[in-house]
């Protein structure tokens, strides 16, 4: 236990986490809303059409952030599941469980927008190249995580089992990222995330980054809300929950 800093330990008690998550969820929600509006404005109205792809390139402002999020959420989910398993912190496992559906949604969104974009660009909705496929695998990993989680009855056992699965699945993340280099594919190479100098015009970069942050905050807001629900359910017998529920009923 001494490995965990004291403040984290206090925060990770279900009761404190519940309260913190409530506040954080609201704040993140509002920030996300503002960023999305700004991002959409710059992206759809204020930025120039792509010199090659025309207006269809604007789908990028959803596709790219969603694709980034799909990988980011998985890493977050896996790490917090691992923390939850090793130190038996309920809040951490609840956070991981809450991340899975959100991550799956982002993955589905990346796939869907990618497919829509692919039709004008490559002339087909779907090709079996490495990046597209590994992204599809990511979706399966999320679904597998959720399936395993719901197949095990005992919550504590479920948390530990899914943590192992999540950790094993992390292997897929570098594969997704480097797939464009390892295989010659149709998909775009890194344009934004290149280390030296992004090969993208600044007027497109700004809305892209705005949307990326908007998605992050949306994710946080959503995941905190779900984690709260799960904690309430798991701790339903505990005193603090009964006080809370009783208090809200106005007793």
């Amino acid at each position, binding site marked *: 236990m001494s490995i965990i800093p004291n403040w984290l330990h206090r925060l990770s008690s279900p009761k404190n986490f519940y309260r913190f998550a409530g506040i954080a969820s609201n704040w993140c929600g509002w920030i996300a809303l503002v960023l999305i509006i700004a991002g959409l404005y710059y992206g759809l109205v204020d930025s120039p059409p792509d010199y090659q792809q025309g207006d269809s390139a604007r789908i990028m402002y959803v596709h790219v952030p969603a694709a980034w999020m799909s990988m980011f959420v998985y890493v977050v989910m896996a790490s917090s599941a691992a923390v939850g398993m090793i130190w038996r912190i309920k809040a951490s496992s609840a956070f991981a469980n809450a991340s899975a559906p959100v991550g799956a949604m982002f993955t589905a969104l990346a796939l869907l927008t990618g497919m829509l974009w692919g039709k004008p660009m490559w002339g087909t909705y779907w090709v079996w190249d490495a990046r597209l496929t590994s992204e599809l695998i990511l979706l399966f990993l999320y679904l597998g995580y959720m399936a395993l989680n719901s197949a095990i*009855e*005992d*919550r504590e056992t479920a948390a530990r089992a899914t943590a192992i699965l999540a950790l094993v699945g992390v292997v897929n993340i570098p594969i997704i990222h480097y797939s464009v280099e390892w295989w010659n594919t149709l998909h775009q190479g890194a344009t934004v995330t290149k280390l030296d100098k992004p090969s993208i015009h600044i007027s497109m970069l700004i809305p892209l980054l705005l949307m990326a942050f908007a998605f992050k905050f949306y994710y946080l807001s959503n995941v905190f809300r779900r984690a709260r629900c799960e904690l309430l359910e*798991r*701790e*339903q*017998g505990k005193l603090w929950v009964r006080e809370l529920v009783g208090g809200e009923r106005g007793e």
Partner: protein
Amino acid sequence: MNEEARIEAVGLAMSRNDRYIFTDLNFFLEAGQILQVEGHNGSGKTTMLRILCGLTLPTDGEIRWCGENIRKNLAEFHAQLAYVGHAPGIKDDLTPLENLELARNMDRARPGVSGEEVLERLQLPAFCDDVPCRNLSAGQRRRVALGRLLMLDAQLWVLDEPFTALDPSGRRLVEELLSEHAKAGGMAVMTTHHAVNLDGCPVERLQLGT
């Protein structure tokens, strides 16, 4: 056997699906003692035995072997342990003798004991020697599972309802084994809904779920 051996449960609590089965359970057992865990159906006896073996993690509290938490050195603790649970732990496709040899090789064997001797002690009929265990009756399989106690050099026996499916002669056999084990300085924790009668050995009792 180690005269100083001692197993101890400290502040044990267990919740299943957010309902506590038992809380703050404390007891200890020393060399030569036998503990019978009692309690109505669903009082948590099986759960407690599995925690004692280190198979299940308790929600709270710990088990100590010779004063040290068993999680610290699980391997050493398991070298001292023989467990016979609800499931027999024998392979249905192997003969009784092969099963016993297997148990011996996988764990710390009792020196100078052969599988044949053990089979004899268990009073299995002769034809069972080359019959796979799946063709044995419930009580015969139980006897093979109990054979593990004789094959292993374990100081602590943990037995979950060892009398299940045994006929009167089988029950007497288990009682004999238990009292011999206690006299030799071993210790045993067991659950059963029946009265046990170990000649000369006192049996401690632990009541769960009152």
